[in-house]
């Protein structure tokens, strides 16, 4: 029994080490093109800033929006930006997975003795995502000030939310094993998750909320964390972690099942 548990701990350790190493070498590769890396990050940062302008205009006309004030919306933005940023920094291949499967580029990962799902996702870094990630933290400090406890919680939610978002996007990509190129579906899923994470959830009707707390869980990515940041509860936190874990496990199992149908580079649509 103990050896099995030890083996499992060992697997987790080696994979965490792998993620850390990929992170390190990706950053080193980015430093080869410092100027472009910094420009991309700043661009993304500024891009996000335009939306503050939008909300500033809106809240200069109304004082509250479905119970949310200007600061609340800023905190939602902070969460969403850092969460998506974290995902694209650490698991930079998340948007490429469908293409990787289609082009047979999964071969490289299948030949290595590591979990393919983790290996493929973290082998690349999306550099512009650093802008999003930093932007979220800047907003957080503006809204919450220097509050170490909240900072810790915020960081936890960013990581958990990033993993959850990645799990949902990867599931859309996994469809590639079954129906061929599914990058369009991934795009739709991503747009949905993003757009429903950036506005107060109270503006949406019941039907949308159902989707937000099930198939496309924007609610668990941003809004539950937001509520826990304003009013913390252990039950809420544990519940959220359980939900996140369930989504991630499901996504992984789905991928593992799909992988059996992998066709390497042989999936060529013959033109007649």
């Amino acid at each position, binding site marked *: 029994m103990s050896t099995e548990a030890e083996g499992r701990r060992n697997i987790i350790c080696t994979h965490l080490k*792998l993620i850390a190493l990929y992170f390190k070498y990706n950053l080193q590769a980015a430093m080869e093109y410092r100027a472009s890396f910094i420009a991309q990050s700043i661009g993304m940062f500024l891009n996000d800033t335009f939306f503050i302008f939008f909300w500033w205009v809106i809240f200069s006309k109304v004082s509250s929006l479905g119970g949310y004030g200007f600061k609340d919306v800023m905190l939602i933005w902070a969460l969403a930006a850092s969460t998506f940023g974290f995902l694209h920094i650490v698991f930079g291949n998340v948007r490429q997975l469908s293409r990787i499967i289609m082009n047979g580029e999964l071969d490289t990962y299948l030949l290595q003795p590591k979990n393919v799902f983790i290996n493929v996702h973290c082998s690349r870094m999306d550099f512009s995502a650093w802008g999003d990630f930093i932007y979220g933290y800047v907003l957080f400090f503006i809204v919450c000030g220097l509050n170490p406890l909240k900072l810790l919680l915020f960081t936890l939610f960013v990581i958990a939310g990033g993993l959850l978002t990645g799990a949902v996007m990867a599931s859309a990509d996994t469809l590639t094993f079954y129906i061929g190129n599914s990058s369009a579906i991934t795009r739709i899923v991503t747009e949905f998750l993003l757009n429903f994470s950036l506005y107060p959830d109270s503006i949406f009707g019941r039907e949308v909320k159902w989707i937000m707390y099930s198939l496309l869980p924007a609610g668990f990515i941003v809004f539950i964390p937001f509520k826990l940041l304003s009013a913390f509860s252990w039950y809420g936190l544990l519940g959220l972690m359980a939900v996140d874990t369930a989504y991630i496990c499901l996504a992984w199992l789905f991928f593992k099942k799909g992988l059996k149908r992998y*066709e390497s580079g042989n999936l060529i649509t013959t033109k007649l």
Partner: protein
Amino acid sequence: MDKADSASAIVAKDLRKVFKTKIKKEGFRESVKSIIGPEYKEIEAVRGITLEVPRGELVAFLGPNGAGKSTTIKMLTGILHPTSGNMSVLGFDPQKQRKELSFKIGSVFGQKSQLWFHLPPIDSFRLLGAIYEIDGRTLDSRIKEIVELFEIGELMDTPVRKLSLGQRMRCEFAASILHRPRIVFLDEPTIGLDVLVKQKIRELIVRLNREENTTIFLTSHDIGDVEQLCNRAVIINHGRIVLDSSIKALKYGYLNRKIIDVKFNEFSDRSSLEGLNIIKGNGLAMKLEADESGGIQEVMSRLMRAGSILDVTISDIPMEKIIGDIYRDKDTEDNDIEATSAGEVRGCDCSETEDGGGGS
């Protein structure tokens, strides 16, 4: 070597792989149609391959493009799941024990690079070390060993994008054996390399095989690779094995012939050309086939006698032609022995002349 599984590096029984591809026709109407109800076509890439490779052997796996070489290798390495059939690689089932197996095999796969383009090779080596769970001290000594073996010491700190293709290939090869694999799969390892680098890579392959007793499974279009490296050749076409014999036997039957392209300035004694095997010839330029075993010299001296030569090139017979010849021979043979069915065809003509040098 007997059939004892422990002695075999690779055992495959009746491997098959069928791909389903979407058929896409041209035109707007057809595009819409293919979205609504796509049509599928089944393609049998591998149609029953049975193979056994003993440990420590150097096998060439040959065949034209689309013959099913890559598909077979991908099944043996656990990338693809076969439609049917059994296999065992180093005692593992690639389908179920991909991870365990991957610790024991290495691969240089065509143009797919394991090295990070923007980083120096040493960084990729360290990353691969972590992937293959090699502990720090072992990794350091292994890297030192390989760097010496491959003579890549001065390349280790240069970003890969600044290396030449030959240098990159050497590093690529080095990266694939960091973890001391028992089998190395090489897919076209010398493609696009110049003669000197090619020779270097070949030497490395042989040394790896001798010094670490690594089984080498190699695909190539280059007859030279096969001749100089391997002791056994398996040729496949249309997803089936058409020939499985020792290189010696293959050489005797097929590889010993050369193509000679010659261009004369003028003829002085045309009659000395009589009796030569001229495949194509018009006027002063002609193409001949000659046998390596003593024949070439004879042909050359006859050519010299025939007139003043402007230009001459001697080249290997292309792989496609050899396979075509094997086919033709097989066809005539099949007419004699009707019992040989479409299933598994072993090259009996050669295995009979085999002198035990290969792997059986």
